[in-house]
């Protein structure tokens, strides 16, 4: 059964999907320095909503409605429709034990959804895994349409945690660059509709071809030195998609701008013999939006395919990995047919997916 995706929507501090695409193209940086946000009042670079007067659930509702408006709003309350929520920490104002289930309960009631939303919480691989979970459920005919929404907000909890790991940068992050100093945290929400019916999309939709996860079996908070899990995940995704590495036109990497993550990805891409394929990280622009990242970045992949532009990797100047990659340094008009999106997270989980133009 063919699975389609589209209706990609983003609500980020830098704007919606189209606005973000244009800003990256024009070279506008999406992160800025926030003084005194660290545990001991250190400054860190973040992509943060300036005037934060909405709740987690309101943002979740807004992104779902924005996405479904580009599809068919009637399906929202259908028995054949499911909502999947991807988030690492949920709404911490609801208390830790209900941080993920409370917003899901509220959104089900508010939007009159037939099914309780399925919540996936797999660290920074959550977003990519949520899209794959949706596609696999559709292939097994469990539903006809699945709205996949990713959302995470910056909190003291997350900020102090990443700070305690010395993983944050006080400058705009530089994924894959030799001077990269660490992550910029980001916040936001994104949604994509995954469906078995291509005709229900109001705009262009794309094919989902395959998506698999693999573990590193190495360390709970450090990436594998050999890129084993990412390598295995991409091999399995290519196999499921019925493609080979030479079919991929563009790789949207995880690219957090930590020393070890970016090095791990470079090693995995070389083992896959994909080092020559144009690759970027969107995290230099959006920051690392954790559970939303995989969906924000897949939405940007779709934007790139729609507009036939390979977007530059924001923050990149000079090669900073032990083995080379083809990092996109300048926006390049190019027909993009097939895209590989990857993500890796704590727990040693790695996920990938392949999407293709629906010709």
């Amino acid at each position, binding site marked *: 059964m063919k699975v389609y995706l589209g209706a990609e929507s983003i609500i980020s501090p830098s704007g919606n999907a189209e606005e973000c695409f244009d800003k990256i193209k024009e070279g506008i940086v999406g992160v800025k320095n926030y003084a005194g946000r660290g*545990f001991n009042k250190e400054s860190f670079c973040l992509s943060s909503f300036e005037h934060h007067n909405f709740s987690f659930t309101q943002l979740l509702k807004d992104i779902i409605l924005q996405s479904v408006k580009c599809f068919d709003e009637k399906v929202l309350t259908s028995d054949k429709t499911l909502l999947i929520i991807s988030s*690492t*920490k*949920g709404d911490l104002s609801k*208390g*830790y*034990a*209900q*941080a*993920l*289930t409370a917003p*899901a*309960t509220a959104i089900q009631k508010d939007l009159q959804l037939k099914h*309780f939303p*399925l*919540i*996936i*919480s*797999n*660290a920074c691989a959550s977003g990519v*895994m949520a899209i794959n*979970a949706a596609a*696999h*459920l559709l*292939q*097994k005919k*469990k539903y006809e349409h699945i709205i996949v929404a990713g959302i995470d907000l910056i909190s*003291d*909890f997350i900020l*102090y*945690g*990443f*700070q*305690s*790991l010395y993983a944050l940068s006080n400058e705009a992050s530089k994924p894959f660059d030799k001077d990269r100093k660490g992550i910029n945290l980001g916040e936001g929400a994104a949604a994509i509709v995954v469906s078995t019916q291509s005709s229900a999309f109001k705009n262009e939709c794309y094919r989902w071809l395959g998506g*698999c*996860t*693999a*573990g*590193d*079996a*190495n*360390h*709970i*908070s450090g990436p594998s030195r050999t890129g*084993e*899990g990412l390598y*295995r995940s991409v091999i*399995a995704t290519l196999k*499921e998609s019925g493609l080979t590495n030479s079919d991929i036109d563009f790789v949207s990497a995880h690219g957090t701008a930590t020393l070890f993550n970016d090095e791990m990805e470079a090693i995995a891409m070389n083992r896959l013999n994909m080092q020559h394929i144009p690759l970027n990280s969107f995290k230099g622009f959006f920051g690392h939006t954790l559970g939303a990242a995989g969906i924000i970045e897949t939405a940007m992949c779709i934007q790139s395919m729609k507009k036939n532009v390979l977007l530059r990797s924001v923050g990149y100047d000079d090669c900073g990995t032990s083995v080379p990659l083809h990092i996109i340094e300048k926006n390049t008009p190019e027909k993009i047919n097939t895209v590989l999106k990857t993500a890796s*997270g*704590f*727990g*040693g*989980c790695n996920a990938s997916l392949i999407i293709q133009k629906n010709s």
Partner: protein
Amino acid sequence: MMTTWCRWKSDKVLLNGELFFQCDKNNTEDMALQLYRFLKIDYPKFHKMDSLSKTGFLLTEIIKTRVDISRFADDEIAMVFANNHSCSETDVKFEHSYLEDKTPSPALFVYTLPNIVTGEISIRNKWYGESSVYILPAFDAGFFENQAEILQAHTKALMAGWLQLLPETDAFIYFAEKTAEEPFSTKKILQAYHSL
């Protein structure tokens, strides 16, 4: 088909329906540590784990006393776990480290994601297969049936279950394998879960 299952509720652990272990209330060590000693495991990393990881780790180890996992290649066993409170016990401890102890603890922070348990089990067993963690409002046998059906195409066996720790331990892990005659069949899940 489901071959082996392990149920830990409150102070008892059942293996395939039979009493496997009961907590000694006079022992000052907690139940997880008592179980660890009972299983005669020598794995120092266990002591660093949070309660969610310890629970998943111990139940998997108990299942391994009945299942010869060496029959499977390193990517042939998938994991799917769920609960309704994520890793909230560890979240509270990490918050305490920065609010009360005034030093955010990196050792606690790394456990503030509910999927770390799959990472710990994969490190222990050198498993590179599929793994995922979901948050459900309550135990749902239908969810596990759907996941087993999806994973049939990707994997030969499945270690799956419910890792609920609040308000008390209410955990259940089962091992299922695909046989030539019969794909994953998890109809016994509900019955096994309700055995305690």
